[in-house]
């Protein structure tokens, strides 16, 4: 089982990914994380407008066996949440880097992006 690690994203040690465009970060969990969880059955998303700090728990993902926190990889205001993923949590398993995204955050401190892992560093962390 080799997990995908797209090269155009940045990663948190806690297995979230970040895609940045126009000062807005889209956040999800990695292919490796969804493999570890398997069978995602519930996703709990934050309220739009909530301001989160980097490393703060901002969502919950539940598999059959366990509930796990999702941490905001960056600070900022929640601009949007993915209603499709709360309606159909299996998207986290089938399309973790696309339709399975969780939240969009308006970056309040873009410098934080430099603290995140490069694809190479994340690959090394998970042994991919």
């Amino acid at each position, binding site marked *: 089982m080799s997990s995908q690690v797209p090269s155009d994203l940045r990663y948190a040690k806690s297995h979230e990914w970040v895609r940045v465009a126009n000062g807005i970060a889209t956040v999800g969990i990695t292919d490796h994380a969804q493999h570890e969880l398997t069978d995602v059955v519930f996703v709990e998303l934050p309220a739009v407008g909530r301001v989160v700090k980097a490393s703060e728990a901002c969502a919950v993902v539940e598999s059959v066996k366990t509930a796990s*926190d999702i941490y905001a990889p960056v600070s900022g205001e929640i601009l949007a949440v993915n209603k499709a993923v709360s309606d159909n949590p299996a998207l986290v398993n089938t399309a973790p880097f696309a339709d399975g995204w969780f939240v969009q955050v308006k970056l309040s401190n873009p410098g934080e992006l430099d603290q995140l892992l490069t694809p190479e560093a994340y690959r090394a962390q998970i042994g991919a």
Partner: protein
Amino acid sequence: MIRIRTDAACHLTTSMSLKRTPLFAAHQRLGGKLIEFGGWEMPVQYSSIVDEHLCVRRASGIFDISHMGEVFVTGPAAEGFLNETLTNDVRKLAVGQGQYSQMCREDGGTVDDLYVYRIAPMEFLLIINASRIEVDVPWLQERICGSSHRSGVFFEDASSRLGAVAIQGPRVVQFIADVFQGPSQAGTAVGSVLDLKKNEIGLWKSLSGTSGPMGPIWVARTGYTGEDGFEVVAPGDMIETIWNQCLDLGHVGCLQPCGLGARDTLRTEVCYPLYGHELDEATSPIEAGLGIFVVFDKGGFVGRSVLLDQKTNGPRKRLAAFRMTDKSPPPRPGYAVISGDQPVGTVVSGTQSPSLNQGIGLAYVPPTLAQPGTVIGVEIRGRRFAAEVVKKPIYRKP
């Protein structure tokens, strides 16, 4: 994100002294994800819990249950001793028959729940929980020593030399007689393993694909999934051969290896208790809704007076099965049950049911709230989600 919030957290910590079954290497080869369970390093899943669960409901699955304990109680006074120690009535067992039973304290609390088989006129095999071996063995030994029957009872804890597998699902009948061929050699006399009826056990001494006699291989038509199936107890050094023969011959039944994750969701759907969840030393079988396994007219047994009082006057708590009624996170052990604005009970088992695609669980509540149809709430991360008490089992075969 992989910070686990529930009681499953302990599953991800590997301590140094975990015990391994004879199938440990097989689990690694099959890509099983290993966790800690009751002091053992066991596979929680191979493919996914949902996949394995549905495979057992629709086809067949094989589980390593070698962590469970096996105890032999034998001798001319074994029957009398067991009837004073267990809640069920072993006198009802003919040779080759088994029954579910509890073993209680004087105060009615449950020491363990177990299966007892009469494998010969004066020989009984007890299958006990892995997490309770270290409690049950001294409990039984002390009771034998203090018993008037002590000169007629022999005891052996065979847990470390025996292993076990469970083969479960509607398509097990398509291949099981290819694995365990011919007639039984002891226990229930049958011409084929397929002739064993529910709760019957037989002895086989050879295995397809191997030369020469082996054994003893005890095969019982029992299980923990709500499906037809068999549980097999054999010497530890034969378990991998049995496992591999089942996987080789089981392809006709789409047999898949299944982990403890699916074992737990399968048993929760049919409301079978798991020690440490539905049962513990502070909980009686009457409270757990297992009164049919407590036989009062057989004479004295440990816990009888407290259990009879609970049965007559009603217990202070009851185990209720429930289904979440709205979209909700899965209920989990430890969550509070709410009625009105008050916490009134605790979830002891809970999961997303793979068969029903809905949150289900078992909870201890006041007896007045245990009636099917009662609306309750489950508190999950500070929010209340609606649930309905339902009849057991939660899942029935269509």
